[in-house]
């Protein structure tokens, strides 16, 4: 069986959930080989984790020459790895950075590229959700090694024992790839809440919060949810941009999305329309968001959310 390269999504060696989803999907196409960009001394620990989801091999690519530069060195390393392994496909978690890596890799390998798949079936047919979620598209790479970026929450991770054989891969990074330098990095502070794109439940607030996110955050915490925001809330400086849901923010596809004081503009819908269940609280019965909801409350979020938070807590005891 051919190898399928799966790029591991991690923060400081902490493997993220989309990696396990990708490994699960990769097993439909061949034998997954996980690719770890990071310090070699973290390789064994990472391998131990991805092995449980079927990784037969784990290529450890020392990121000492990679992490100080934007995108290009990673694409170069993956090109060399693909040339060595002739994989059946290369799968990457769909982040902005990985999409750019994938784009460059596609040119280097002369291969077709599909971005933001929400599913990949046997035989490599991908499903994408386009035009703000209004269309579903089925596509397939027809030339070269399929390079596919896959969105979070595209598959339920399934465990499967893999060998997890660690192999160091020495990539040669050219000077030409080191031209966009990362001069400074400021890590974002953790909120202690689940990550927006991975969360099973997302509770968002918009302009209707009037800048007071406490009711939204309180309700989110009672449900163990991530917090999101509309662009209006971000532009007003109430929430950092990292929390924005929509066309120019994050795309989320949780089991439950709760929109509070959000009107439901097309650009916002683009980021949340594929959520399984949608709920809204809005004081305007004509708000377009109500066209999408499974359940809606016409009311003031400042009254509804705190009361609902209390009731959730009561139920949970």
């Amino acid at each position, binding site marked *: 069986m051919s190898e399928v390269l799966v790029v591991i999504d991690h*923060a400081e060696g902490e493997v993220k959930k989309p990696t396990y989803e990708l490994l699960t999907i990769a097993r439909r196409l061949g034998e997954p080989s996980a690719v770890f960009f990071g310090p070699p001394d973290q390789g064994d620990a990472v391998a131990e984790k991805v092995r449980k989801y079927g990784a037969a091999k784990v290529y450890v690519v020392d990121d000492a020459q990679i992490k100080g530069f*934007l*995108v*290009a060195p990673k694409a170069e390393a993956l090109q060399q790895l693909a040339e060595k392994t002739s994989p059946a496909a290369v799968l990457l978690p769909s982040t902005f*950075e990985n*999409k*750019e890596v*994938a*784009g*460059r890799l596609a*040119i280097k390998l*002369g291969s*077709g*590229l599909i*971005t*933001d798949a929400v599913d990949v079936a046997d035989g490599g047919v991908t499903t994408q*959700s386009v*035009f*703000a979620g209004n*269309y*579903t*598209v*089925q596509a*397939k*790479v*027809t030339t*070269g090694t399929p390079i596919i970026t896959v969105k979070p929450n595209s598959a339920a991770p399934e465990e499967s024992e893999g060998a997890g054989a660690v192999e160091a891969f020495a990539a040669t990074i050219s000077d030409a790839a080191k031209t*966009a*330098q*990362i001069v400074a*990095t*400021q890590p*974002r502070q953790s909120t202690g809440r689940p990550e927006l794109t991975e969360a099973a439940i997302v509770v968002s607030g918009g302009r209707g919060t009037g800048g007071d996110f406490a009711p939204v955050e309180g309700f989110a915490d009672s*449900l163990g949810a991530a917090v999101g925001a509309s*662009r209006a809330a971000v532009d007003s400086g109430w929430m950092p*941009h990292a929390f924005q849901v929509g*066309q*120019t923010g994050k795309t989320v596809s949780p089991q*439950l999305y709760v929109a509070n004081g959000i009107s439901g503009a*097309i*650009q916002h819908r683009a980021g949340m329309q594929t959520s399984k269940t*949608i709920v809204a*609280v809005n004081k305007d*019965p004509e708000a377009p968001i*109500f*066209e999408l*909801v*499974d*359940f*809606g*409350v016409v009311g003031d979020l400042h*009254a*509804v*959310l705190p*009361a*609902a938070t*209390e*009731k959730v807590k009561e*139920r*949970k005891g």
Partner: protein
Amino acid sequence: MNIVVCVKYVPDATADRKFEDDNTVDRVGVDGLLSELDEYAVEQALQFREKREGEEITVTALTIGPEKAVDAVRKALQMGADSGVHVVDDAIAGSDYLGTSLVLAKAVEKIKADAGVDLVVCGMASTDASGSVVPAMLAERLGMPQVTLASVVESQGDQVRIKRDNEGSTEVIGATLPIVLSVTDQSGEARYPSFKGIMAAKKKPLETWSLSDLGLDADQVGLSVAYSQVEDTTARPPRTAGEIVTDEDGSGAGALVDFLASKKFI
């Protein structure tokens, strides 16, 4: 100094966007416009010029697309770009990212051969494809540093620094011109064309190029040689409207929590 800003003509997101029978995006039957996200690219190109008083800087707006795509260039000229280039050729229709980035790269190289290019500015994504990949691919093809997804752009001499929001961090990226830059909708409001700008745009040079002008053959781009094929497109069934209750004397919270419990979210 010469700046090229890549602008895309896209179907209006607030119109009923759809596909053609061959599963390519309908770019003719649906009203189109300059992609809103590329307005930010035009704005940053213009600001780059304006901040460098005393330097001779021209901004060229470049688009690839069908006849009507020239509207995207016109809008950029109205906003303040100095000249425009429209690459149009039937053979380009249905190109994928590889085809599009190839044609864009060839067009930039042609401009470069004539006048030099110091900076290529793109939007963060096209509002139809939403790939956010063309700028990186353009950088790869042109062999220029890729400085993408900027929320803040600063430059001094031939040095450019940007701020970029990554997954878990905010980064400062630095590079030396010439570069490919892409900017987000956080980079600063785009200006509206003024009446004067609209009048002046009519007299600005606007060239139309075909594939052969770029030294490309019809069999190098377009749907037939795309590296990926769309097999099927289906309109998503509209969500069936759910239950809507009106909050009276606190009834809304109870109903909401009952609903969430019935769906096992609590």
